[in-house]
């Protein structure tokens, strides 16, 4: 089987990889590029653990093929902090104890950042509906929603 040669940008770095037609972007990120921060919870686009951004748009990477990433700019959890400085969302998740097991956390953070990039001043309801595609089984979402609202407040003030 011939593999496809793909060139993309991941977290600002140019990457090249070879992938088979059926391989998802999630497979490529995890198995070829070693970026295991993006998690697989269902592979059907129902849990949001594999959330990434593609040219700024929030996507379940399990629903996109690796070859579709050609020429695109991908953002994953590994690119969220800048240097030693955590993104305000990452910091607020820690301060609010908005994670327990932590497996859904990368997906929530990527999704929440995509929200705040569009809507810097979301209501609680907007946060809840935007994040409705990300499943968390540990927290009951209370502390996650508080962390996102608090990060939004801080980012607006900064």
């Amino acid at each position, binding site marked *: 089987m011939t593999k496809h040669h793909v060139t993309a940008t991941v977290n600002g770095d140019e990457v090249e990889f070879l992938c088979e037609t059926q391989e998802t972007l999630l497979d490529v990120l995890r198995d070829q590029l070693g970026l295991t921060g993006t998690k697989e919870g269902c592979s059907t686009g129902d849990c949001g653990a594999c959330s990434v951004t593609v040219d700024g748009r929030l996507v379940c990477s399990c629903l996109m093929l690796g070859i579709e990433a050609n020429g695109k700019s991908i953002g994953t959890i590994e690119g969220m902090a800048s240097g030693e400085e955590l993104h305000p969302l990452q910091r607020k998740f820690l301060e609010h104890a908005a*994670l*327990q097991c932590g497996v859904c956390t990368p997906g929530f953070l990527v999704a929440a950042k995509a929200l705040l990039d569009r809507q810097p001043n979301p209501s609680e309801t907007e946060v809840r509906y935007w994040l409705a595609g990300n499943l968390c089984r540990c927290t009951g979402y209370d*502390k996650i*929603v508080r962390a996102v609202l608090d990060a939004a407040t801080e980012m607006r003030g900064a």
Partner: protein
Amino acid sequence: MQEKVNDAPGSDYTYVGTRPIRPDGVDKVTGRAKFGADLAMAGQLVGKVLRSPHPHARIRSIDTSAAEKLAGVKAVITGKDFMDQPSEFIPAGEMMINYRDVVRNVMAREKALYEGHAIAAVAATSAAVAKQALKLIKVDYEVLPHVIDVVEAMKPGAPLLHEDMYTAGVEPAPKTPSNVAKRIEFVLGDVAAGFKQADVIVEREFTTKPVHQGYIEPHACIASVSEDGTADIWVTTQGHWIVRAHCARLLGWDVNKIRATSSEIGGGFGGKTVVYLEPLALALAKKARRPVKMVMTREEVFRASGPTSGAHVRVKIGAKKDGRIVAAEAELKYQAGAFAGSPVQPGAMCAYAPYDLENVKVVGYDVVTNRPKVAAYRAPGGPISEFAVESVIDELAGRIGMDPIELRLKNAAKEGTKAAYGPKFGPIGMIDTLKAAKSHAHWRTPLGKNQGRGVASGFWFNIGGETSVSLSLNEDGTLSLTAGTPDIGGLRASLCMMAAEELKVPLDKIRVQIGDTGQLGYNFLTGGSRATFSSGMATVEAAREVMKEACKRAAKLWELPEDAVEYKDGAVRPAGPNAGKHNPMTLKEIAGIAGKTGGPIAGYSRINAHGAAPSLATHVCDVEVDPETGKVSVVRYTAIQDAGRAIHPSYVEGQYQGGVAQGIGWALNEEYIYGADGKMQNAGFLDYRVPVASDLPMIDTVIVEVPNPRHPYGVRGVGETPIVPPMAAVANAVANATGIRFTDLPMSPPKVLKALDEARAKGTAKI
């Protein structure tokens, strides 16, 4: 943040009761943390499992020859690769296990007993090759009639799962086999006499559906077996010592040959206390002589890993007009799935545990059906029986015309109460949580249109158990703490805080890790809400050993008797008449002299932690029912629970909130749906709908603290109790809103709408 009631003694702690950032936090918000599927090994193969398409079938033969010949296939295994095991029930935490059944559950032998039952497994160079190989395995099935429903399975003439299963606990012993594995009974006093005194009696039957733990991380492991027979397994689990024990037993290997390392664990809730893939991965790795990685798909998680029981429950309670309960009876029929061992026993034990009653009778049945074998799920068995009891108590309060909190207060268990299941309670917080509920603003806030309010209480035992912890004083005075109970929701933070409190050193001077099975003595798993309790107790003991040894070393240096030296405020000091004779020595200074005063300093605690204490909760729930669609929305929720003492209150609140969310899912949405063909129809997160952020309100919490006198910091387990009250709290709120008592879970929109339409036709609906 959330309010905290009860000014328990000891609030002057430096670290205990504060809310620091958890030590494993940064790695979890940056994607660094390594979960079960995140490790790769050089030369690794992909393992995949062939699963039965039939709910019940005899396996006449399995032909793996074509699969073995496929290029890229390195190993194929079936049930024949595992030795058979004798039938023997062994206690395993809150559940019992029988290796005869475990070996058959990880890989079918004579029969496939549920759709999704593992039949064979392959290891190949890629996932694509492995999947192709599965298609080449030929299985000759003799399809048998199946039974899915618990009541159907109990009937004479129902399809038999195990021809040699005779109901235990029945006199005289039955002569014909049955799907009823066991009958149990708890009796206190005389219920018949009790019911005679009752002014009001309410009797109801309830059904609940199997629901899945729903951890977001599927089961995953990677195993490597060396040519010398030593093996390594990296696995997402609630207990890697348990994984080691089960795998060694099933493979016939010495325990020391297997080193199990627990990855970060992406949720468990009881579902990761058993083995599925692990023995297969080790067997494949041994056969292939290469590492084998196995990860379940979400569909496999639903079809082949344990949900909790669905059940049929009858509850009958009698009370005097003043609210005093005079007799209480329950009959519990729990599905075990394909093998005996439902949580009916704990379900029966805790059914009436929150109450101080004289006459109680609980009968339980453990019933096999053609479904995946149930696994523990957060307070296994408790939510089912207590849903029924708390619903009937609510109805009883309505019939008497009494406030439901008052009725519970009138009957509440307290210190000294003899529980129906045997023990006498120490200090417990049932009354405290009820009083906190009554005085909470939530209880007095007026309701809106189409809204109703419900209250329910809940009980869970909590356990201790075998635990080992080591604490090493490093050469620069910092400390390394190693525990063996996997950290699912903030354990490392709590252990670090308790160690820091003992040693009076800053939190960042102690690094906590979860050790592998080669680094510590035996550790039972993270379950039964035991980790903070047991590993915390062991951590305190290890810290005290370090302090004692530090004193000993200083005494040697100062040429004083050991008892003339004390550890205080983070330093070793001369005590009593010698006070002030020498400058205090910090741990850093003690570490500096360790070599010349006797060698490395460490505390090592290996205990069987006794004194675990129950945690009680009372929840208040407001719902709004849509009169046109039947959709129930939870609009306000308050969870009040006794934590003993909250070491890190944020993670205690998190346990309350998470349990509530799972309970609301159980009440309103979640269920295993089967077709007439015995196959699950909703094996994915789209159709098995767990609550999402937009389904829920903020979940308010109140931490009540009635310290557990048997723990150095008063800790009770807190993780399981929060899932016990929600189903009844929601159902009681729905009854309050609609005037309709729902006894079948989930209360999904079609069911609620149908009941509303019927009630409207009769003129009994409130909305």
